[in-house]
Structures are given as C-alpha cells and as structure tokens.
C-alpha cells in the first residue's frame, strides 16, 4: 500500500528539498517514524520533547483533519494524500528576484 505525504515548505530543508514522499505506513505513528527514518533531522521539528506531535502541527488526510478520522488509530488507505500543515501556516517564502509581484498576473 502506498500513500503520499506532502511536506510543507518550512520542513523541506530537512527533506533535501523534497516536497512529496511516498510511504507505506498504516497509521500516523508509524508514518512519522517512517518519515523520520528517512529524514532524521525533521524529528525535533515535528515532535516536542516528550515525543508527541507538536501542538501546532495539523495532519490532514485527503483534505480532512486526521483527528476527525480517528487520529492515531486511523488506518491509511491506498492512495491517501497526507498533508502536514503548521496550524497557522503559509507564506514566508523568500521574496523572488525582481520583487514581490502578483503571482497571478
């Protein structure tokens, strides 16, 4: 079984810039372990000192918050897309060369 995990830009410096990774874990705790095995540097940013996923990190499965699907007990399905999103996420990319233009034209 394969699922796809999308890494937010804030964490891509720990994934060698990789934006999406394919994983085979069945549950969220296993998935975090799988990601950390491949990219060990990500661990201390995803989890707090007690090993819990940080309070301000939200995990979505196919656009649904995983907490509504059972959280840690949710069993992934083939083809699930998992999103890792800081709770007040977004922005913060460096300004592109040529200034901050309207990306939509």
């Amino acid at each position, binding site marked *: 079984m394969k699922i796809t995990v999308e890494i937010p830009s804030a964490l891509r410096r720990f994934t060698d810039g990789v934006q999406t990774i394919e994983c085979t874990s069945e549950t969220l705790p296993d998935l975090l372990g799988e990601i950390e095995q491949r990219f060990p540097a990500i661990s201390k940013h995803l989890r707090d000192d007690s090993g819990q996923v940080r309070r301000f990190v939200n995990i979505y499965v196919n656009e649904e918050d995983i907490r509504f699907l059972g959280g840690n007990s949710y069993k992934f399905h083939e083809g699930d897309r998992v999103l890792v999103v800081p709770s007040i996420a977004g*922005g913060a990319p460096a300004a592109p060369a040529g200034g901050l233009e309207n990306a939509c034209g």
Partner: protein
Amino acid sequence: MAEHYQLKCRECGKLWGNQARSFCDECLSPLEVVYDLDAIRPVFTRKNIEAGPTNLWRYSALLPLPEDYIGSIPTGFTPLVQARRLGKQLGTTNLYLKNDAVCFPTLSFKDRVVATALAAARRFGFKVVSCSSTGNLANAVAAQAAREGFDAWIFIPADLEAAKVTGTQVFGAKLVRIAGNYDQVNRLCSQIAEKFQWGFVNVNLRPYYAEGSKTVGYEIAEQLGWRLPDNIVCPMAGGSLITKIKKAFNELIALGLVEEKKVKFFGAQATGCSPISDAVKRKLEQFEPQKPATIARSLAIGNPADGFYATRAIRESGGWAEDVSDPQIVKGIQLLAETEGIFTETAGGVTTGVTQKLLEQGYINPSETTVACITGNGLKTIDAISAEYTLTPAIEPRLTVFENFINDRMAAVAGN
C-alpha cells in the same frame, strides 16, 4: 530610529525580526509581535494618546507599524456604552458594551485588524492582499484594500450570509467561494500562501493583523477613564481577540497608564461550534476540533488557530467560558436590540446570551464592572432573525382605517 517591535516565537522564544511570517521554522509554533516597552514608555502616555486622532491610530506607538506610518482609514474608537436597561434585565448595575457593530468602515471589529495588517502588507511590498474569512474579515479586507489600492482575493465558505458576500463583492474584490467549512478554507489558504506571493492578512501577516485587536482593549481602558474593568466577555472564533485584549491590558499596566488589576476573561461561543468553551469547561489543556453547526457563522471555526492560547488566557485570568444554542443566540440579539437599541449580528447574540448565562450561573459578580464586546452588526445576518417577525397587511392611508387597526391590535394584546 530602530524599530521597537519584532516577531518572536510564542513557544521557543526565537526572534525573527520583521517579515511576512506566521510561524517558527524551528518548532512550527505561532509568532507574536513583541515590543521594547522601555523605548515606547516616553511616547505612549495618556497625554499623547488623548491628543491623537479619535480612531485607533491614537495608539500607533504600540502597534507594529512602519515608522511614521499614517493610516488613511479612521477606524476604531467605537462607543463604550453603559447598558443600564440590559443590565437591569440581567441583574447587574455595572454592565458596559463595547460597540464594534458600528466600527468604520465595515461594521465589525475586523476593521481594526485589517488596518494593521495592510500597513504590514504595504511595508513588505505585497500588491495583492488576501484572507480566509467567515465574512466580516472578507468585508474589511475588501473595503480597506479598495481604499489603499491593493488587489484583493477573498476566500470564504460558500454558505455565507448574502450580506457578507455582496458586502465583499461591492468593493471590487475577487471572491472565491469554497465548497467547505471555514477550517477547510483556512487550510487551503495555508497552501495557497506557500505558492502565491500574496499578503494573507490572517496567514503570513497574522502576527501584525492580530495586534490590531489590542485597540479594543486600549479603548475600553481609556473610555472607562483609564481604568480596567473587572470582567470582559468576548466572543471567540479563532480565539485571537480575547488574548489580545488581555495583552493590551497587560501593556497598559506595564507602562503605568492604568492601575494593576486582575481582569477576569470570559469567552463566548455558540454551542454548535464551541471547541474553546468546551476545553475550558472540561479543563482540557488542548481543545478538540469540532465540525461547526450553528447560525453564528462568523464564529464557526472548529479548529481555532489561537484556541490553545485563548483557553490558557481564560484559565489564567480566573475567568470561564460558556456557549449558547441557536435559539438562545436569536433571543440574545433581540434582548440587546430591545433594551439598548443595538442591533448586533449572531456573534453579538452569542455574547449577550453568554453574558446572561454567566451572571445567572454566578461566574460573573453582578456588582463588578463588566464589559461585553459586541463585535458585529445585525444588518449582516438578517436571515438569522427575520423569521421571528411577521408583517401586518398594508393599510389604507386613512385615519379611520388606522384607528380601526390600532383598536384591533390593542384588543389582540388584551386578549393575550
């Protein structure tokens, strides 16, 4: 002169200077604007403030604005009114209403946060501003973007009230209706903000945006004659406002503008979307997200960005939180209108209903000074209450017809 503020991670404390960024790369926690209060102390005085304009820019020294920034939109400084008739109904003599139902220009407290957010958008060079919104923020961003010359892209849940939809489109904003609830809109905007170089007021500009809410607190203190109330009742959606009023009071105490006082903070939610009040009442450290189902659409955020901090602020203050059902929200709107002549939207019905409940339950001492924050205008949520009223048939414009009409009405009332 160096700037007296910058971003700081609320959890790990890392400093980030000033940039369009809402969270810490190290621990993914939210950033907040912090100030060098010692540097601000000489200018943030009662005298200077009272000599300033009668809008929120009188507090510019404690807002994250570019140096010499002059806001062109005279927002804020809404009335603080003593609510004698409502207070009498609820059994308290010291009830005040902070009436942001008449905030300029779009009749909600969101005009305040957009004012500071657009200052940041200008500073960071954005040409497009954007937001995810339950309606009031959409109106505020659209209106102020028009006046300030930004393009605006606004993202809303598709089922918003018609007045809030039209009240966004009229300003020329591009409106994107999403088939989902606010939490889904917000998550999408987080993803869009990563790809588009836009100033999302409540995403990448969020720390600067949130500071605008402090002006509610400054105004309450100033309008009470530079003193703090005993209790604040505040509606909660994302949970930011209640934490920022608390921050404002703490700053005023630290700078010596008011006497120190431990103000109790009370949070108000709709039962159909009450993750924060639920966490307070069940004494949870972290709230549990909910799927919103309430007529109070402006408060329908099931995964509130500042829910953790709002819960903590309430608990630390010695306050409490409550929630009211949809019928109680409607009754709250009517009660406020009939006793004080203030027509508020559903969120204000929540605040009024919860204030009543907290007094009845004894959480609020009726002899203390309480300020309830009315954050939006009833003309935007007419649908929520229009079914409560019926229209009588039109009558001919003749005195005798009216006399018959009034006699019938009086008889009907007497018959009841």
